[in-house]
């Protein structure tokens, strides 16, 4: 049983690598496009950092955090955003599958339709900015000081946990897409919500902070991992994060199953 499961996983991994390679080759066929896209991302990144410096130029702090600590929130948001875009880029194309009826083809293939529409278009182009981002993050971390190896390990684990929440959001969007054909703006709402985590959560009123912790867990995706890197995290925070990701993933999978039951194949 275990060996059979492992074989299936290996087949999926091999399939994902093949599709990812092809998608990346297609993207890189247009070198000018890659260059412009990357330049745009760099400009956005630099401008926002300038904005953060401007924001803290008088007081040197924002919500009790120094500029370097505030930068860490922004960088953590970017890490989650970049990896989520890389892994689940196909979700952005899901509406076409539904309105053209080609989702029927996906359903008839001997692979999980959910995995196909989640991971079927990973584009390495999205990863270009990740390496300089991590280097910059390391620099910012040195400016903060007193960051232990344990903090870094907990941070990485919580980022992985945050990605599970991001994955759940993407599955919710897919389920919504099956029922309503609305995907594009829904996925952008997810991104707008995660952008709220670019700043320390305590700049928001308490009620909003609670919503971002328990209802839309931006805190579990960005704020709590960042706090863990700075060494200001309670074990309760870690437990809350893990519970929230488990709840969100279960709910999203349920919503996907429900959506599939309602799929009418109307466009095919």
């Amino acid at each position, binding site marked *: 049983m275990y060996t059979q499961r492992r074989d299936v996983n290996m087949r999926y991994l091999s399939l994902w690598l093949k599709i990812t390679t092809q998608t990346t080759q297609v993207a890189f066929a*247009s070198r*000018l*496009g890659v*260059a*412009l*896209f990357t*330049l*745009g*991302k760099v*400009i*956005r990144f630099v*401008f926002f950092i*300038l*904005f953060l410096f*401007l*924001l803290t130029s*008088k*007081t040197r702090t*924002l*919500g009790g955090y120094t500029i370097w600590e505030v930068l860490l929130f922004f960088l953590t948001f970017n890490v989650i955003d970049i990896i989520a875009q890389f892994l689940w880029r196909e979700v952005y194309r899901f509406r076409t599958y539904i309105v053209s009826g080609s989702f029927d083809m996906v359903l008839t293939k001997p692979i999980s339709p959910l995995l196909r529409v989640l991971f079927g278009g990973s584009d390495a182009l999205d990863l270009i900015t990740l390496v300089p981002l991590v280097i910059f993050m390391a620099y910012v971390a040195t400016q903060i000081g007193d960051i232990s190896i344990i903090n870094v390990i907990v941070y990485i684990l919580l980022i992985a946990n945050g990605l599970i929440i991001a994955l759940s959001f993407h599955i919710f969007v897919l389920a919504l897409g099956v029922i*309503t054909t*609305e995907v*594009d*703006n*829904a996925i*952008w*709402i997810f991104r*707008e*919500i995660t*952008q*709220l985590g670019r*700043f320390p959560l305590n*700049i*928001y*009123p308490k009620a*909003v902070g609670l919503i971002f912790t328990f209802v839309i867990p931006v805190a579990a995706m960005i704020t709590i991992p960042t706090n863990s890197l700075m060494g200001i995290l309670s074990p309760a925070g870690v437990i809350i994060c893990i519970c929230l990701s488990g709840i969100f993933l279960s709910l999203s999978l349920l919503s996907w199953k429900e959506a599939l039951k309602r799929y009418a194949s109307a466009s095919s």
Partner: protein
Amino acid sequence: MKKYIQIAKNTWDEALIYRTSFIFYRVRELLKLFSLYFLWYFVTSRNGDFFGYDQSGIITYLLISTFVGDFIFSTRTTAIASEINEGILTNFLVRPLSYLKYYFARDIGDKALNVSFALVEYAAFFAILRPPFIFQENFILILIFITSVLLGVILYFFISVLISLIGFWSNEGWGPRFIFYQVIGFISGSLFPLDVLPKPLFALLELLPFPYLIFFQSKIYQGQLSGIEIGRGFLILILWIFIMYFITLSVWKKGLRVYTAQGR
């Protein structure tokens, strides 16, 4: 003229067919507003002021600039590049209408719908959060403000069309537009008032068209510009409209010469 009014109406109706999509789009815009509102509210609650802007000053700037941005930046001209690339432009060239006027009419329909929704959202926003907003009571200033917004619409239309016309020479129209969005998001004044920047940088920005899409209009509304500054701003704004108009027309004519209706 009648046909362009009908095109504007059609654009309105078309957007309402995909109601869920449009409502989700508005939710996105509202989330952006909430995020910036709480940020600036927090910063000015703690510090008292931000480079001379007190809490009501910065919140008024934010709300007005977001509203103006909603109006000026909503456009359908982004589709022009793909219409050129896919040869769809041919369908328009054989019809008895001006392609650019057609898109301007579509923009009007799109803006009307966005502003209608934005007004409802703002009403809810004011009812729930009761922001410290300064209502402008000077009727003349309001008239000047409305005029500057309308001129901003024309300026942005030509800039946006110009970027889409890259489609005549390249399939990478989205690349320059992506960069343009990043730049304009920062130097139009949608994140913060541009006059908090170092003076030499601000003086340089004032010569470019971008501050005349949001920043200039918001400052007029707030009554923070002198008569001379308003006059100078209008002069630069109108000059940029003319420059963009002539460049757009020239590029459009050159583009048509190389257009091959590829894809049809």
